[in-house]
């Protein structure tokens, strides 16, 4: 008869699973912060350009914003990877996965650049 082969999940798969949960937890807190901040801005401080740029220049806003971008981007990248692996077959799969990484980095760098511009504008 056949001998049972040792079968462990690949370390990459386990890591993917954990990181998805970790970023999910972090995202929950950071997004609740963002929703509360938008609520505060809309009802108390105001949503005009001057108020918003002033708000975005504070370190205590820049920090969670940067963490938010990083964590949500990593989270959606992991999630979309699973989507692509499920639905794309053949050579298209590799192409989509490469595209996913380019897309993720583009969004992250675009957002981070803007956040830093806002953070440093106060010094100008």
């Amino acid at each position: 008869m056949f001998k049972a082969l040792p079968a462990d999940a690949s370390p990459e798969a386990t890591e993917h699973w954990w990181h998805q949960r970790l970023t999910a937890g972090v995202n929950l807190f950071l997004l609740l912060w963002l929703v509360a901040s938008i609520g505060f801005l809309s009802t108390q401080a105001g949503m005009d350009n001057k108020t918003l740029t002033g708000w975005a220049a504070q370190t205590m806003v820049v920090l969670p914003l940067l963490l938010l971008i990083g964590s949500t981007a990593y989270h959606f990248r992991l999630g979309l990877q699973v989507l692509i692996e499920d639905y794309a077959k053949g050579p298209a799969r590799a192409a989509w996965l490469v595209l996913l990484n380019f897309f993720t980095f583009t969004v992250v760098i675009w957002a981070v650049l803007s956040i830093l511009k806002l953070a440093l504008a106060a010094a100008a």
Partner: protein
Amino acid sequence: MAETPNKARPLSPHIGIWKWGPAMTVSIVHRATGTGLTIGMVLFAWWLSALASGPAGYALFVDLFTYQSGKLNIVGWVVGVGLTLTLFQHMASGVRHLFMDIGDNFELKSNKRTAWLTFAYAIVATTAFWAVILFLEKPHV
């Protein structure tokens, strides 16, 4: 691995034969909202870059979603409510997911109940959020 699909192979029926249940629905909605939120991330990055580009650039961005008076136009409403609904739905089904990851919530009754609760949460949270924004909004100058 990435095998080339043989389109001529016979397939058994899969999606159309199963009765839709709450757990099934919540699962595919979780996937769909996740994808929708990724598009939301692009919008978020766009908003940040518009804000960073100065008052003129920001005014152009805001103009897409609002009337001159500052009130949201139809695009603003659809995107705004759509995004918040998507966010709260994904958030709720995500938290439900975390409970199932530790082995909890597999009993049929609570599994179905919590699935329905995610939809209820999404609607309630979205309504509450927009009610606050609309009724307590600081008047525009």
